[in-house]
């Protein structure tokens, strides 16, 4: 099924084949994302971005992706200066934006806001993170990082470490990895374990999932360590936060025991979970992961918004 004109709200909206189609397209866009080649693929197209909560890399990478493709963007980056501050409903803001742009990218503090936006918008809507809910384009760039490094998404052993309870990126990534037959190892503080419903869903999908409290042991056969930030706001007791976040820091000494092709990933921003000494290691993949946000979002935008070539040589929009 074509992605043209479609919404992307949750990673569940994509089949295995569609994910692979996006990853293949992303690979082709890398030279343009790096500025070595130019593209006018989305010339004349306008992308509307509505960010109802702060974001740096997600917003900038969408803007970069659209502009690298020759398209333009309009952005609500600060809802306090827009009609939202006057009490306009989300639905009305979305209707307005969808009448201006050719597609809409939305980030919102409430879970499900993007699904609502997709229902009221007559243009495609891409979810750029809704509260603690879904962030499917982050998952796509996580998959692109793994796929670029290993040449496959199957048969890998992936450790998910840190806040597995509230971290939206790990839930989506775990569900996506389900589709490709990789094994998951969960390493988290007891209070931030992966929710039962997610573990059950993964088990039902035939994924091998296990918890491993000993990171050293988990690392022995691992291909990927995916680290997430433990968020201070999840803890009422700051002493408890300091204790837990301190014990979920990656120790660079452990890198001496990992497989040669092993990589460390992180959705960023990081605080102290990965010390800077790891950055120069060949195992550090998180900056590459951050860069791949651009070609992955280019791929997605070009597939959702792409026009066909007309007989006269110009593009029909």
């Amino acid at each position, binding site marked *: 099924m074509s992605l043209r004109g479609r919404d992307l709200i949750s990673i569940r909206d994509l089949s295995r084949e569609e994910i692979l189609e996006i990853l293949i397209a992303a690979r082709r866009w890398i030279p343009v994302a790096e500025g070595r080649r130019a593209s006018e693929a989305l010339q004349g197209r306008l992308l509307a971005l509505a960010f109802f909560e702060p974001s740096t890399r997600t917003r900038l990478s969408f803007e970069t992706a659209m502009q690298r493709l020759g398209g333009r963007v309009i952005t609500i980056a600060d809802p306090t200066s827009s009609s939202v501050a006057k009490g306009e409903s*989300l639905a009305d803001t979305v209707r307005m934006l969808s009448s201006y742009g050719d597609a809409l990218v939305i980030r919102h*503090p*409430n*879970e*499900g*806001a993007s699904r*609502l936006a997709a229902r009221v918008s007559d243009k495609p809507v891409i979810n750029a993170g809704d*509260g*603690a809910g879904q962030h499917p384009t982050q998952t796509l760039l996580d998959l692109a990082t793994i796929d670029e490094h290993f040449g496959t998404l199957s048969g890998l052993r992936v450790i998910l470490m840190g806040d597995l309870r509230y971290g939206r990126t790990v839930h989506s990534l775990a569900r996506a990895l389900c589709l490709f037959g990789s094994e998951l190892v969960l390493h988290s503080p007891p209070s931030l374990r992966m929710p039962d419903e997610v573990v059950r869903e993964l088990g039902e999908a035939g994924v091998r999932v296990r918890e491993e409290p000993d990171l050293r042991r988990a690392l022995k056969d691992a291909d990927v360590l995916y680290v997430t930030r433990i968020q201070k706001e999840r803890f009422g007791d700051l002493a408890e936060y300091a204790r837990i976040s301190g014990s979920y820091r990656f120790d660079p000494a452990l890198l001496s025991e990992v497989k040669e092709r092993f990589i460390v990933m992180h959705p960023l921003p990081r605080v102290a979970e990965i010390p800077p000494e790891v950055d120069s290691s060949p195992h550090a993949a998180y900056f590459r992961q951050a860069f791949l946000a651009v070609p992955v979002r280019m791929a997605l935008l070009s597939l959702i918004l792409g026009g066909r070539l007309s007989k006269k040589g110009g593009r029909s929009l």
Partner: protein
Amino acid sequence: MNGARELKISSIRNGTVIDHIGNGLALEVLRILDIGSLSKDSTVSVAIHVRSQRMGWKDIVKVENMELSPQKVNAIALISPTATISIIRDYRVREKRAVDLPDRLIGLLRCPNPNCISNCEESVESEFEVVRRRPLVLRCAYCERELEDVLFHLARP
């Protein structure tokens, strides 16, 4: 029904009989029916802990002069999938059917996630997808959170 049971709840001329309600759930059914909004000429009979060959024990609710909206039937199916509904006209059963849960439930439940957009925007009606029927698994169509305690999250009529 046999004669002995008819004595426990008198028959009605026109209205609805909701039978095979899960044991102890009759009061929840009354809540769904919004009994307070009925006119005084609608007699409501309730039997709780009634012997049943099929279920062991069951509850029964009879309401005079009322036929259920599809929305109310869906809500009853949600809390008691075993229920059957009989429409009575002139003391006769005109229609009898088991309740059937649709694939999507709109406006029936509140999402358990306080940060879900369906709890934050007034114009948005809650919506749940039935992921599995037995055991019942419902997922919010907006935030994708699964709902565990159906009774607690039933929307008030």
